[in-house]
């Protein structure tokens, strides 16, 4: 068996994901509510409304309570001298290898929620693909960006 990548992302990611889960749930509920009101006005069948409510409850629980912790448990990354390895995915576990020589540039991004919790995501670009490490501590993300771009510069092979 292959060993798992070493590092986990910040535990604060859980909070951030739960918050975005709440935002998502609010949007989902408002859509469901509109649909139910419309159904009521136009006297549509009641069972559709009931299904919508049940689905709403299930999705809310999944997005706020279950998915964030499953996702956090699965998320791992490791930066080695010659390559970057990522592991993610709740139902489908994906592991990705990105050699340092293939890295074109590295970004850190920070949305409003991430900023509030002093977190940032690192995005690594190759000539063909884009890989995100979400929710690292601000300083850690900054260091990682420097570290990766330094390693990426060391070896020059032609594309």
């Amino acid at each position, binding site marked *: *068996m*292959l*060993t798992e990548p070493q590092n986990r992302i910040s535990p604060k990611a859980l909070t951030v994901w739960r918050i975005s889960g709440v935002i998502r749930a609010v949007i989902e509920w408002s859509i469901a509510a509109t649909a139910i009101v419309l159904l009521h006005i136009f006297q549509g069948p009641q069972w559709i409304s009931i299904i919508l409510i049940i689905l709403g409850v299930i999705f809310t629980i999944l997005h706020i309570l279950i998915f964030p912790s499953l996702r956090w448990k699965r998320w791992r990354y490791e930066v*080695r*001298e*010659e*390559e970057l*390895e990522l592991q993610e*995915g709740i*139902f*489908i*576990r*994906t*592991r*990705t*290898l*990105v*050699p340092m*020589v*293939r890295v074109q540039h590295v970004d850190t991004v920070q949305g409003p929620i991430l900023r509030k919790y002093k977190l940032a995501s690192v995005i690594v670009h*190759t*000539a*063909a*693909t884009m*890989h995100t490490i979400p929710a690292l501590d601000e300083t850690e993300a900054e260091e990682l960006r420097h570290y990766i771009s330094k390693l990426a510069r060391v070896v020059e*092979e*032609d*594309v």
Partner: protein
Amino acid sequence: MFEPKRLHPIASVINTLKGIKNMLIPVAAILFSAGRDGGLSMIFSLIAALVIVLFTFVSGILSWYRYTYRIENDEVRIEYGIFVRKKRYIPFERIQSIDLTEGILQRLFGLVKVKIETAGSSGDDEAEAVLSAISKGEASLIQDYVAAAKNADTRDTQAESEIEQIFNISTRQLVILSLTSGGTGVVISALFALLSQFDDLIPFKRLFRGLKDWAIHNLITIAFFVFIGLSIAWMIGLIITMLKYANFAVVKKEGDLIISQGLLEKKQITVPLKRIQAIRINEPIIRQLIGYGTVYIESAGGSSANEEGANVTLLPIVKVDQIRSIIGPYLPEYALTTDFTPLPKRAKRRYLFRSWFFTIPVVTAALIFLKIWGLLALILMALGSFWAIAKFKAGGWSIHQRQLSLRYRTIDRVTVFMLKNKIQSLEMQESYFQRRQDLGTVGASVSSGFGGAGGTVSDLEISDVQKIYQWYSREKQKQGSLD
């Protein structure tokens, strides 16, 4: 070469035509929208249309007048723009390739269109320069200049400049290519698109009302006309393909592959061997049955506006078992193997389940809502299962020293050959169901033009997936088989 030059005056006509082409739909819309009421609005819309056409004509001439090019200080320098004057200097080292195209207009005057391509890194269409009509002599002069300047740096590595013939399309191949091409579909959809443009002009509704009664009594006649129509569309598609791929030839010159094609419109594409990211063989179902396929190369050149630059047809039609002997000697880094490790037997069930996952709900819904006619949906399920088995059979992988080869089926059977140092990232996946069966998915990405390309094979033996993963990992190789 050092003083600024204009393009051939015919370029102004080309500019105008291009402008008119872009304006065609708006102008038609103006004409048709107001045209029916007659009287004043009719005159207005006519004037508006005329003004637009006149404007395009004048701007076509002006943009020709303002467009100059010259070669200076190892740069191609272009100055253009009617209101805003723009200058673009392209250093020789940045030039990826120079493509020549001879459209019908250019051929009438013995001219060529020259497209100067830079690397696709900036991504926008502004990255390249197009000299839409210059004399052939001038074009080859530019080519020579650029080649000479480039070779000055790397003279010792590449001394010989002989031309090696790699491939010339035969009449037989051209016929097979045209017969099996999907040109028909293109023609039919173009026809529909055209008809829908004239929606306002032709009173379809009124026509159809009368037609309906007539149609019911004349089903055979209608079927006949539909058949004739389809045959004509197929013939047109066939001719278009023939014209496009006639005289298809591939030669190798120094470090470049030069591909030329076309009868009415001649086209020449240059692909530096260094820029090849992967080799891909596509076998559409019909061609696979008779043992033929198409070979493409993924190249790192090209910009988003020029997809062709990235995904180049190398051999439009060829017997699959001859591919290796045709291009193998010229691409020595690649082992064009036909030796693939197939998927394990138990993967077949996964492919079938995955197809049923979509088809069974459809079939159940059809049976519930359409009653006996819903049984027709079973055909869909049969097709889905058949396709799933075909996908399972196509799947396979092989590693040959520094090369990963993947084979899978979308609709065509696709075989991709990728060198380790051209693979941008590698991925392995396990879903819950795959894990229970010790299966896994592997995917590799290569760079191609502005985006990515590559391949993914589902449901390999998990130990095989790990083998590929380890092969790609630079660190795990060092650790050897410790874990």
